[in-house]
């Protein structure tokens, strides 16, 4: 078994997941430092969501090991301890149509054992930052896709996770919300939150991420800072980096 990096907030070694005969992720080794904002890029079906689901404890790896916030993934007793420090924003926000945005945040905060004062203070601030204050008391059923995303992001951030796993968080967000969301990510990173950001928006990744990993066909093709990757592939645009790394050019 390959050793995991002890200093990393998210560490995987030889991580793999097979569905039937198809490997979605193979031999993945990641070491993401505490407070680092790590971009996870790849085409559709590259294995990004599968990796995130394994890190969040939704999927069991077929091979390899992982550790999140110092807690090993295969330790049964510490499962809840690990969940307590991880926040997941999936591609489709799991909102309740017939709860209001505020009620939904209260529900999530309660599940993550957040004290009432902390919950109220954080959620008010997040609602304001994400432009949700006016809609917070409306039913989620009436929200647009972008609004639903923002409400779930607010709910997850209200739990103050040590590790934040984001799967396509900017899909459906308007430019202003995307701007505010990027600022929020940088702020969270400065506070020490480790963030794994899976996205198809290359500009966002290049702008906010400390390091970027590019995944293709379930394997990590390359990783480094945006500048390092551009230098390695000898191109100016990040789009070219992505295309070369995924063998599309």
């Amino acid at each position, binding site marked *: 078994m390959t050793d995991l990096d002890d200093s990393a907030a998210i560490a995987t070694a030889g991580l793999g997941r097979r569905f039937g005969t198809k490997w979605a992720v193979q031999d993945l080794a990641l070491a993401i430092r505490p407070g680092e904002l790590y971009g996870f890029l790849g085409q559709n079906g590259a294995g990004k969501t599968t990796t995130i*689901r394994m890190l*969040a404890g*939704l999927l069991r790896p077929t091979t390899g090991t992982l550790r999140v916030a110092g807690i090993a993934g295969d330790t049964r007793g510490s499962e809840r301890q690990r969940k307590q420090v991880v926040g997941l924003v999936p591609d489709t926000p*799991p909102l309740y149509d*017939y709860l209001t945005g505020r*009620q939904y945040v209260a*529900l999530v905060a309660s*599940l993550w054992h957040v004290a009432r004062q902390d919950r109220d203070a954080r959620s008010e601030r997040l609602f304001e930052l994400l432009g949700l204050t006016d809609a917070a008391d409306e039913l989620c059923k009436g929200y647009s896709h972008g609004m639903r995303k923002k409400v779930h992001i607010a709910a997850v951030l209200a739990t103050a996770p040590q590790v934040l796993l984001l799967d396509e968080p900017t899909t459906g967000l308007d430019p202003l919300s995307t701007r505010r969301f990027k600022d929020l990510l940088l702020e969270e990173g400065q506070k020490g939150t480790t963030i794994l950001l899976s996205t198809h928006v290359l500009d966002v990744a290049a702008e906010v991420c400390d390091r970027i990993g590019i995944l293709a066909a379930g394997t990590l093709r390359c990783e480094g800072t945006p500048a390092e990757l551009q230098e390695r592939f000898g191109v100016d645009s990040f789009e070219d980096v992505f295309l070369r790394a995924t063998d599309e050019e």
Partner: protein
Amino acid sequence: MSLLAADLRALANLPRAPLGRRLLLHVGIGLGLLALLSWWIAQNVVTSPEVAAMLRRHGGDRSILGLLGMGLLPCPVAATWLGLSLAQRQLFETPELPLWQSAPMPQWRGTIQILLRATFLAVVWSLALSGPFVLTLLQHERAPWHAYALLPLAVATATVPLIAILLVVQIALVRLFASRALRLVLTTLGAAASVGFSTWLLMILFSGSEGGSRFVARAASADSLPWTVDAGAHLLASTLTDQFNFAALQSCFAWLLLATAVFWFGARLHPKAIEAHRLAEPTLRRRRRDWPVGIAATIRKKELAQVLQQPGALIGFLIFAFLVFALVNRQVLVGGILADHRLPLEVRQLSAMLAQWFLATMLVLYPHMGRLVQWEAPQWPLWVTAPASHAAILRGKLEAVGLLLLWPLLLVATVSGHALGASPRTLSLFLIVTAGGTIVALGVLAFVGTLPLLVRPDDSGTIAQGGRGFFASLVLILGFQLGVAPAGFAWIWLSIWARENHVSTELAHDWTGAVLAAGAGWAVLVFAVGFGLAVRNYGKLAAPR
């Protein structure tokens, strides 16, 4: 690929996926059981000497026409149910609407597709419910081969025009009067149609041979048939005579053509109706209320908020109240108990009320079970990633379900207590016994509602909705019956013993406390075991796949 081909392809693809296979299997079993019920009723009808005598009295031809008409009656019933509930949701909320609207095809094309889907489902249900009954009648009357060949046409004539008209009326109403009030009215109608259909099936199931005779008497002596089945019944009846009635065949085709024409014009209103429907979207602002922090309390509040903030759910509760009223009013299942004058009045009333509570609770138990895991399918990632204890999550959900289960209990206590003139003592005893029964129901519901065999997540860990619903409801009902069976048997045994030994009221009063305590002990035991197993099950469901 055309829309029709896409739907057919999707249907053909069902067996390729495990969920699709399960869906087909369970729908097939459900429809098969209904077909068996239809065949069983028909067998009773054609072999009953009373029916033969009745047919002779009323004149053979007229009675056969009446029986065929009654045999086809499930077609308009299924059409009304699907036209008002499923098709209504399809008209305004089907996920394919944005695709259809943005596609370069006539705007009414999607509407036609909705009619085709609704018609397909209605015809499948109608064939299961009507087919065996009508086939048995035709076989009994030694009908020629073309009678069997014309059965699908008769079923279609009794189904398609009604569905088409229902859809067009709903489209036109929304196009002209779209408002929140109309949405509420349509939602109510949809819910009423669903409950009405289930009630109708229940009535058939519980009416037994006595009900069957009444049914035949009504059919044989009917002066005229409902318009929805008239043409089809005449068509089939004419095949039994020496001369085939071409007018009946023409009538069937005329109905189908009329339905097509009406729908053709109505479908053109659909795009504007969708627009009007969306503009009437409710955007109620809610009052801000503080929420608790404890996990169980929050979940209990979340479950209740979902009921209170969902108009359809509240309407469902009201419709259920009417259903209970009807059950109590018609004394379904309890006529025999109330008529047994060898038992003291108090015992008869209590037995009747308990039987009614049992039936009413059984009707709502399955929908409430979904609150534990099944209905959380879209939110399952939240529950799996939450660091909350599984016991606390389940406790919160069961507390909410427990509160919701008080509704049938209070309804029966109020309606039946009033109808039977029950004394305060009888009512108190009823409330105590049913409180214990509700605890048993919660224990069974916790266990069955989390059983990985019934709500197993798929390979990616997502809870798959549907597919196992039929089995889950059977297991739940069986579990509930087993849970209350010891109390039920003890009650029957005590009643017989009291009857045979002429037990005095004083002695019965003396022993009441001990009997209730034993019942309460049993209820707590069932709940404790069910809850313990449920916590273990939930852990299995939430574990990474």
